[in-house]
């Protein structure tokens, strides 16, 4: 009954009410605008529905199925989740490896990019050059970076170990050949990409009000105190942003391990996403991999929620109650 004008925003009204509402009925122009707007957005809407929304929904369904990508999916209930939690030793190992990266790699990366940003926030000649220099690695393709670092991290002839030996370190680490050092090696390599976070910090540092700095200076605050009580609180929303993005990124850590170690030595770099990939594309257990993906989603969601909850206590939004 109301199909035609329903698109105009009066869905659910019937004929009786129409006369009362007629003044609110959108004009032809508005309806045309809406239609045109939808038409213009259609490529994205269709793309989103077909390539994102549908696959997400399908993967949830597949996670309850046995699915080898050749024959149709078959419902198996919670089987995949049960196998994952109770029988797959690599699931736990990979989760543990990933949490390791989150717990150690993420803070190290955050501190490093903040440190570099602070250094590059000085007023020095040629600062733009240095900033570019530090930012460059983060736009280098990860695969290229990984291959380069394979050489740098070579235990016997790599530059890093040669340098360590020159410095008098007798027992140089085996880096990617040693399960105890493989994750630190990847974290070390990750620092090379600190430029991405650095740029965001740099932008935020420009926003720290001069007036506050001056006031602190007049009150006799030292450099450390100014950093602790002015810069850091002003930066805290950006730190939160970098923390959340870093958290999500760390849980999805994949490319470097795929390219450089393939999960070795001794499973020490089998990260969650790598294990998921192997289950999906080597074993072709798409249902199981979908279940893993949803578990990862829930874990990431929980961690992000925790961080966001805690943020009320340490993030300061300028202007808020000021």
């Amino acid at each position, binding site marked *: 009954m109301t*199909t*035609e*004008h329903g698109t105009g925003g009066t869905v659910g009204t019937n004929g009786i009410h129409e006369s009362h509402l007629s003044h609110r009925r959108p004009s*032809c122009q508005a309806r045309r605008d809406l239609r045109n707007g939808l038409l213009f957005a259609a490529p994205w809407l269709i793309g989103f529905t077909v390539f994102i929304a549908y696959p997400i929904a399908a993967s949830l369904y597949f996670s309850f199925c046995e699915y080898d990508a050749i*024959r149709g999916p078959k419902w198996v209930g919670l089987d995949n989740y049960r196998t994952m939690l109770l029988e797959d030793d690599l699931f736990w190992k990979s989760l543990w490896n990933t949490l390791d990266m989150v717990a150690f790699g993420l803070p190290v990366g955050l501190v490093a990019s903040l440190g570099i940003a602070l250094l590059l926030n000085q007023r020095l000649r040629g600062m733009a050059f240095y900033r570019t220099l530090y930012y460059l690695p983060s736009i280098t393709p990860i695969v290229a970076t990984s291959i380069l670092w394979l050489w740098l991290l*070579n235990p016997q002839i790599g530059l890093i170990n040669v340098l360590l030996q020159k410095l008098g370190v007798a027992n140089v680490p*085996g880096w990617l*050949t040693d399960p105890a050092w493989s994750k630190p090696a990847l974290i070390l390599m990750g620092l090379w990409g600190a430029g991405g976070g650095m740029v965001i910090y740099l932008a935020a540092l420009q926003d720290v009000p001069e007036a506050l700095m001056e006031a602190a200076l007049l009150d006799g605050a030292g450099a450390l105190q100014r950093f602790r009580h002015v810069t850091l609180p002003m930066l805290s929303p950006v730190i939160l942003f970098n923390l959340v993005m870093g958290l999500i990124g760390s849980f999805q850590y994949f490319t470097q391990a795929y390219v450089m170690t393939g999960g070795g030595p001794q499973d020490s770099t089998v990260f969650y996403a790598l294990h998921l990939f*192997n289950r999906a594309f*080597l074993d072709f257990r798409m249902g199981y991999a979908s279940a893993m993906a949803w578990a990862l989603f829930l874990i990431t969601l929980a961690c992000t929620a925790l961080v966001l909850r805690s943020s009320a206590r340490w993030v300061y939004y300028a202007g808020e109650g000021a």
Partner: protein
Amino acid sequence: MQGRQTANHRGCLRPGRPTRPVRLVPLLVAIALILPGCARVPHHGPTEIVYWTGWSGHEFDIQRRLVEEFNRTHPDLRVRILSQFGNSGYQKVRIAFAGGATPDVMSTVWADELAGYARRGVLTPLDDYLKRVGRDLEREFTPGVARMLRVQGRVYGLAATTNTCFIAYNRAIFREAGLDPDKPPRTIEELDRAALACTRYDAQGNFLRYGFRPGGLGTWAYVFGGRWYDPDTNRITANDPRNVAALRWMASYSQRYDIRKMEAFQTTFGSTETANGPFFVGKTAMWFTGEWAEQYIRRYAPNLDWGWFPLPYPPGGRPNTTASGGSVFVIPEACRNKDAAFTFLNWLTSAGPVERFCLEIGNVPPLIEAGNRPSFQRDPLRRFAVGLAQGVNSFGPPPIPIWPTYAREIGRAEEAATLGGKDPQELLDSLQRRMEKELKRAERELAR
């Protein structure tokens, strides 16, 4: 109804806007343009066969030349060859199967995957076709290859190439270490002794050269007399005592040598088949490799004084053991013209083309007739490799659907024993339990 009337009443149609039928014209034109592209135009002339190959570069060129020759000699058929190389090429195969959009013939299936595909019903069994042209798999092919092409009693693929494994050794290093280069090791004990004799350290205890480091538990288990799967009982045999013995022997190298240092030393020389691979630059005396080694040595170390010997074996083990795998030629179930596809496949896997292809790319022919031809028998290394492939101890991947997973897990167990110092018995017991469960799960899934 009411709504429509209101809308018309409001006169929403813009003046000058074409009426409905007129507006449809561009759409109709578009459809008219697109449709002929979708329709299959009935064509006269040769039947076309689409062939996906996993080979690329030089090897692809030779496949293409063979295809051209086939097209010349078979005027009623026309084969179109496409290269789908690399991991993405082999993954594309799975997607093609899923969508039923497969070519007519393909060689882009790894021997490891054959059973998985066959059991899922996406491959054409070739038994009837073979019978029709009078071919006999077991009589024509090497035993390892014939075994791997049969899944649950039926033939699902044919092979044009196979590989062997043996140990290449540096004769100069043997001489320097006081070993007789004309009497390479024949037993595991002799191999261990030779490995130790060839190893050299610097003053700090770093490796200058290592004799040998065993790798590839999948193969060494066969050398020790073990196996991974028993086809008669359809049982996983991961913890066969002889498999355990093989892994124990491999792990013994970690006790005899500082394995971390050896690992670090090895990585220094990049991968084994590059210009500075440790064997080419004289940093290892022995290299677990195959007949393809010859091409690399010719390219990277043409002056190397080298020889080869079959994998040494322990008492009760298997002499002349070799493992093979590689690409398999299949006809997908979705193929529209199976007779034509088989005509091509039959030709491509006959002695002539197989001989030429294997000679050109330096592989071993899986066909006994091709391997027995002078081109292979005149050259000592080729004759040796052909002998290994044709011997009774040549093994292909077991025809079970979980083999890709199983093979990866064998690799993990090997690493855990040799690098992680874990107990071989425990590792293989655990592997046995997990793979039994995995096979049961796969069988359940396939039975549905």
